[in-house]
């Protein structure tokens, strides 16, 4: 029998995990990627990968706790069956990576070394120096190369995805892609297609993401009918180095290994940081969040740094920046020890800034880092475990039959905010999961699969993309695509990142429409037919503007604060009272508002492409195992709020609800 064939687009961790899983089951894979897969953006992940491990288990940790941290950290916007399954699989995935030869750091006894990351109290993160993503990517790349030698996998590197092949019944039957050297456009028929094309950081101009992370492939699927979910949730990482061409990440591992964030207590203090005495340093995260300290979830650390700089505490007279301090004086840890654990990020800082980050504090500022939103994908719950039915072809499938998505390009695992070191996990997990889902799916693909492609479909679609390219190559106009991209980046960074305001968002939508129109007039400075990067970039600019609209309008519509999405206008005011009875009353009021907010907004945003712009709808989030509870990191009166909330929702699996609130109100005896 002819081998079944799947097209995987993108060769980062998710794409490679899917490919090796499929190849192991002798399903052929055409792996299409704009870069040699070994150079994919996953290499940039630094800090590590989370799993409940034997050390944390000995301290009482469990997969359930990892699941709980992931749900709580994501402010309950992540569907629980997939994240429960992911947490359950995390230790097994790390075992697999260990068997594949990833050079994880080791304890003295030869076990995997662990460190702590944000949003948890356990040392749940295993790591390979400070380039864990690079090391994991290489391990999977090596496995895929093994299958390439065997002929099960065919690689098409330096090929750009132009769009899915959609048949008359609306099913995906393959892809159309372009050779980035010869500009040849051809169809790749397939029994199923997996998108594993990462995030869309370049929508914000400069970010911590790599140059291929335009979101272009996602936008092309959205344009072809795939739903885009939770686009407005964009993670801004608290600690990056500002640069002329990109913003370079300084991993959360720096804080996991005792790095401390601070500013001088006096605004505009011009002294060298090493000359600022201990008493005059303001370790603001440690002060405000004594439980989590410097390892509060990313959205919270980012907002604190941003607000402080806005209030005049920036440590750089020309830019916004705060100190991230890894010197022995601040951490009490010797230089050699930190070098072993963080070498890669120390090098990055030294190379790009020119000062020794162990000799003086680093200057850092938040940067756009991760897309929690992405292509909507389905799952099938296992009613017995509460996790997933591992064999279901519904897992990771978009609303377009035959079109699957995995990794950062799907929306599934991180809710409103991703926890550090959960990205590598979710990418590998969803890649392996989609591989398994396809094992069932390709036995009976829509319309008979790759072997029975409808007559003329491939030719028609190839011709359509060719015509669009020719039109773009010939287009005259006065606009410059690179300068338009900078404008887009400035607009989106200013208005749709850390703090959001409805008036600004409305104005941004208008500006985006203007940018879209001007984008139609962008002319190429290279009209050649060989390795035309100008063509590829200008095409992606249109995609970025399309996604920018989905992100911005999603943000405008969502009138609440949740994880990375922060609108001060809709923030529930924290209790202020000192008097216990009054504090109790305020906490009850807080909980009622939080409940109302959940009733209205604890749902997934879905955007569907129409010629007139995105059409929005919402679907409920499945919180069947852990009832949503207030995310109270650092909120004043947190204990009282939590106590009131528990009283409102007495039984696990029976979240608050209006009736619960009434009962709690009656029990406490306070009615506003």
């Amino acid at each position, binding site marked *: 029998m002819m081998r079944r064939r799947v097209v995987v687009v993108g060769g980062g961790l998710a794409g490679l995990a899917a490919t090796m*899983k499929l190849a*192991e089951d002798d399903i052929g894979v055409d792996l299409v990627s704009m*870069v*040699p897969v*070994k*150079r*994919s*953006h996953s*290499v*940039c992940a630094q800090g590590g990968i989370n799993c409940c491990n034997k050390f944390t288990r000995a301290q009482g940790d469990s997969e359930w706790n990892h699941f709980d941290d992931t749900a709580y950290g994501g402010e309950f916007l992540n569907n629980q069956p997939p994240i429960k399954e992911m947490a359950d*699989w995390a230790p*097994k995935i790390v*075992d*697999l990576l*260990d*068997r*594949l*030869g990833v*050079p994880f*750091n*080791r*304890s*003295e*006894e*030869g076990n995997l070394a662990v460190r702590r990351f944000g949003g948890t109290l356990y040392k749940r993160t295993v790591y*390979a120096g400070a*380039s864990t993503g*690079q*090391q994991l990517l290489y391990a999977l790349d*090596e*496995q895929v*190369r*093994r299958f*390439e030698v065997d002929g099960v996998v065919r690689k098409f590197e330096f090929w750009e995805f132009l769009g899915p092949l959609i048949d008359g019944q609306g099913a995906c039957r393959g892809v159309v892609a372009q050779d980035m*050297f010869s500009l040849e456009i051809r169809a790749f028929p397939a029994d199923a297609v997996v998108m594993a094309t990462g995030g869309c950081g370049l929508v914000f101009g400069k970010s911590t993401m*790599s*140059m*291929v992370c335009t979101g272009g492939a996602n936008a092309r699927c959205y344009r072809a009918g795939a739903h885009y979910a939770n686009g407005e949730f964009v993670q801004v990482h608290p600690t990056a180095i500002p*640069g*002329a*061409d*990109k913003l*370079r*990440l300084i991993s959360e591992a720096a804080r996991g290994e005792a790095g401390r964030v601070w500013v001088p207590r006096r605004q505009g203090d011009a002294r060298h940081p090493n000359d600022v005495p201990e008493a005059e340093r303001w370790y603001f995260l440690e002060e405000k969040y004594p439980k989590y300290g410097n390892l509060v979830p990313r959205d919270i650390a980012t907002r604190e740094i941003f607000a402080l700089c806005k209030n005049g505490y920036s440590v750089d007279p020309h830019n916004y920046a705060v100190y991230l301090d890894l010197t022995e004086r601040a951490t009490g840890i010797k230089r050699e020890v930190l070098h*072993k654990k963080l070498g*890669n990020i120390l*090098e*990055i800082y030294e*190379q*790009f800034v*020119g000062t020794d980050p162990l000799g003086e504090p680093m200057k850092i500022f938040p940067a756009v880092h991760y897309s929690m939103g992405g292509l909507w994908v389905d799952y099938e719950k296992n009613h017995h475990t509460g996790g997933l039915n591992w064999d279901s072809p519904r897992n990771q499938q978009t609303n377009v039959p035959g079109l699957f998505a995995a990794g950062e390009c799907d929306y599934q695992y991180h809710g409103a905010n991703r926890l550090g070191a959960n990205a590598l996990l979710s990418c590998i997990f969803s890649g392996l999961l989609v591989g398994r889902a396809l094992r069932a799916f390709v036995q009976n693909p829509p319309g008979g699969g790759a072997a029975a492609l409808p007559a003329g479909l491939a030719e028609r679609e190839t011709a359509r993309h060719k015509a669009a390219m020719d039109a773009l190559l010939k287009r005259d106009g006065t606009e*410059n695509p*690179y300068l338009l991209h*900078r404008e887009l980046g400035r607009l989106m960074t200013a208005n749709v990142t850390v703090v959001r305001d409805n008036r600004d968002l409305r104005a941004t939508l208008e500006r985006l429409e203007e940018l879209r129109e001007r984008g139609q007039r962008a002319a190429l*400075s*290279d009209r050649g037919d*060989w*390795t035309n*990067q*100008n063509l590829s970039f200008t095409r992606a600019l249109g995609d970025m503007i399309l996604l920018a609209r989905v992100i911005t309008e999603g943000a405008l519509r969502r009138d609440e604060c949740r994880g990375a999405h922060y609108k001060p206008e809709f923030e529930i005011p924290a209790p202020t009272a000192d008097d216990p009875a009054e504090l109790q009353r305020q906490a009850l009021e807080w909980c009622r508002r939080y409940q109302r907010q959940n009733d209205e907004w604890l749902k997934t945003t879905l955007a569907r492409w129409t010629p007139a712009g995105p059409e929005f709808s919402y679907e409920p989030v499945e919180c069947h195992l852990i009832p949503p509870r207030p995310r109270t990191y650092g909120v004043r009166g947190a204990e009282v709020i939590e106590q009131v909330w528990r009283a409102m929702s007495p039984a696990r699996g029976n979240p608050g609800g209006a009736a619960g609130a009434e009962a709690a109100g009656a029990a406490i005896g306070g009615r506003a």
Partner: protein
Amino acid sequence: MNDQAQRTISVRVRRQDRRGSAGYWQTFRIAHQPNMNVISLLQEIAARPVTVEGRHTAPVVYDSNCLENVCGSCSMVINGRARQACNTLVDALLAERPQVEIAPLSKFPVVRDLFVDRSRMFDALKKVRAWIPVDTYGPIGEGPVVAPEDAATRYDLSRCMTCGCCLEVCPQVNHRSEFIGPQAIGQAALFNLHPTGAMNSGPRLEALMEPGGISDCGNAQNCVKACPKQVPLTWAIGKVGRDTTLHAIRRWLMK
């Protein structure tokens, strides 16, 4: 020339339109900004591709991705030295000489401008079987225990990002030679050092005992100096050299 008064930088770029066509130079003048790297110079050229003579030209084609010295894409010859364009800072270059000069790697076929074809390096990874052959991707338990020192050595070797700088500076890598280059030898060492990989080190060593293998190394030791990730390449070459000798003797004794 760098004219401080105008704060502009002169950037001379080697260009080539197609595979096999003749190369030529173009010079651009770019406004100086603080903290510029070579990538940002190329980005500025792309945004306004006009030469010093005022000629409108196509943006310079180059390979890049992560821009933080970890993906290995943007290797170029910058002011005569093979390195990554992303972590080469312009102010440091200007301290050496007034003009920035950028050329493609010379040991690889040029695709266009600064973009070269490095597929031979990926083919070399196939040749030395640079992977751990596991039985299954299913959950069958933990990996082997590894001593921290061995893990550290393997990590140092595993940072190789296939960038090509070591091949570029190696006198033994040239159009008359089949030498596989330092990168693949380093990777063979990486996998032979793993407990599972050690069980199938034979085929890796044999691949390096063929023509173009380890015996073609001339011990110039340029590779280790040029490596942007400080991969211990000469150590790996020494180790693999000894191992191939032992392997040859063992094979002869087993005859």
